[in-house]
């Protein structure tokens, strides 16, 4: 839970400071996304079962935070709260010291399924958020979509229909679509869980490359412990329903990370710790 360890990698720290130094100084507590004693209950009756409770979490700007926990522990609930799609019944979520009270349009969301629109080409799918929000897209937007597609190696697929692409490619398009509005916060809800193991690893490293070149605050929900360790700066481990914070772990692995890191002692220690939390929650809770 050591706050200062959050920016274990110098490069990330630099990025965070260069980008918005003035604003960072004004808002002294430099948490970007802050959850204060957040809890939510889907049942409107008093004393209804809580989906999540007592969540306290500060996410720093351009930090990569992964959330792991058993299914149904309210991981997605957390993500929807940050997006403003769900207003917590207890506590408060704030972004840049402003409480989240309505859906935010400065977040990009990547879902478990790519959820591309089957009637639009890849490029039009990428442009869809703009078209949907404003009703039209400009030439500049189209150029930006092209750049993003080139960056992710999808340029040659721009005019293909989604069903002509493999699952991994479709999810890449899903990520590009989330990046189009250049959001500061990227919310990813088990984005790679529908992919095969090899594709999953590759797309994870691709995501890290994108994040290195275009720093964003990432909240990444996953079932895979090794994926969380490989990608994140910090890992939030949640208990089963009602979801609470079991541990908040600093990963402290140097970046850039490669598949080799998965053999390091630190990597094994971390996965072991997290596994311990998930399989024997009572020892800590």
């Amino acid at each position, binding site marked *: 839970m050591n706050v200062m360890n959050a920016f274990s990698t110098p490069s990330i720290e630099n990025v965070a400071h260069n980008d918005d130094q003035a604003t960072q100084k004004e808002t002294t507590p430099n948490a970007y996304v802050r959850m204060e004693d957040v809890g939510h209950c889907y049942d409107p009756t008093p004393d209804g079962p809580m989906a999540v409770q007592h969540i306290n979490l500060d996410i720093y700007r351009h930090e990569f935070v992964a959330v792991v926990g058993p299914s149904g522990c309210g991981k997605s609930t957390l993500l*929807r709260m940050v*997006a*403003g*799609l769900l207003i917590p019944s207890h506590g408060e979520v704030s972004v840049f010291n402003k409480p989240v009270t*309505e*859906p*935010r*349009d400065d*977040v990009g*969301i990547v*879902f*478990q*399924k790519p*959820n591309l*629109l*089957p*009637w639009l080409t890849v490029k039009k799918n990428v442009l*869809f*958020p703009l*078209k*949907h*929000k404003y*009703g039209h897209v400009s030439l500049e937007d189209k150029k930006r979509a092209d750049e993003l597609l080139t960056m992710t190696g999808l340029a040659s697929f721009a005019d293909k*229909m989604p*069903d002509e692409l493999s699952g991994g490619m479709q999810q890449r398009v899903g990520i590009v679509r989330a990046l189009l509005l250049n959001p500061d916060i990227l919310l990813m809800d088990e984005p790679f869980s529908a992919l095969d193991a090899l594709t999953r690893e590759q797309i994870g490293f691709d995501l890290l490359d994108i994040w290195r070149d275009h720093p964003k605050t990432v909240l990444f929900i996953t079932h895979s412990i090794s994926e969380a360790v490989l990608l994140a700066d910090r890992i939030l481990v949640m208990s089963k329903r009602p979801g609470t914070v079991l541990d908040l772990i600093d990963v402290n692995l140097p970046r850039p990370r490669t598949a080799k890191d998965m053999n390091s002692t630190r990597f094994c220690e971390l996965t072991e710790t997290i596994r311990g939390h998930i399989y024997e929650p009572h020892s800590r809770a």
Partner: protein
Amino acid sequence: MNHTPAPKAALHAPQQSHNSKTTASGVKQWFKKQGYRFAPWLFFISLLILWESICRLGHVPTYILPSPSSIINAFFNVSFSRWMVHLWATLRVALLGFIVSILISIPLSIALIRSELLNRTIYPVLVVIQSTPVVAVAPLIIVLMGTGDASRVLITCLITFFPLVVSTTTGMLETPQELIELSQSLRAPRYRETWQIRIPYAIPHIFSGLRVSITLAIIGAVVAEFVAAEQGLGYFIQFSTSFFKIPQAFAGLVFLSAISLLLFKSVHWIQAWLFPWSLPKKK
């Protein structure tokens, strides 16, 4: 089997038998494939032959069951222009009713999706209308609205709109929740959520509804003609029967079915032309 090259066969004796086996199974495969292709037609033609032979060998009187050949004769005994007059009368009512039905049901479905209140108030009324047999209501509608096209179109509408409402609402409700959340997080206006996400998602469902409705539209038009009309294929069948011109009635029936089938296929063609992505993928 003769296609196996001789020298190769001499050099690789064991392989030759293998090769000839594959050629033989290839021929077998070809026959199987062609058989599957023509099986429906062969079956249909043999049914017609069976029908014809029963009529001829059993000396069945034509006013009981006319033979296929007598039906064909009767068809060509009616002049082309007379067929066209009746066809146009039926087609006009059926298509008008169908179009009016589309114009009513799709906006209605959107309203039902958007408003819980409308869903609670209007939907039960729609179910009541749907459960009332149209054949029973048709004479009342004629009394109420006269014998013009309007009442016939209304009868057609009553029978066609419900499958459309059901399929459109089902399709719109099947839109992935994540896309609705995407729309909400973009704070897009709701009409764009409807037009850019929900309606396109409903297209495959809408078209299966349209396929059901177009055949029902023909049924609606014929029911209306049975009650009150001076023209139309339904009317033609009815008066042919009442004059004991049974082969002619059968000819009308066959023509009507053919038109209905053609309209059904047309809906499919329109879908393939306008929304090719919405068709199930061929494997």
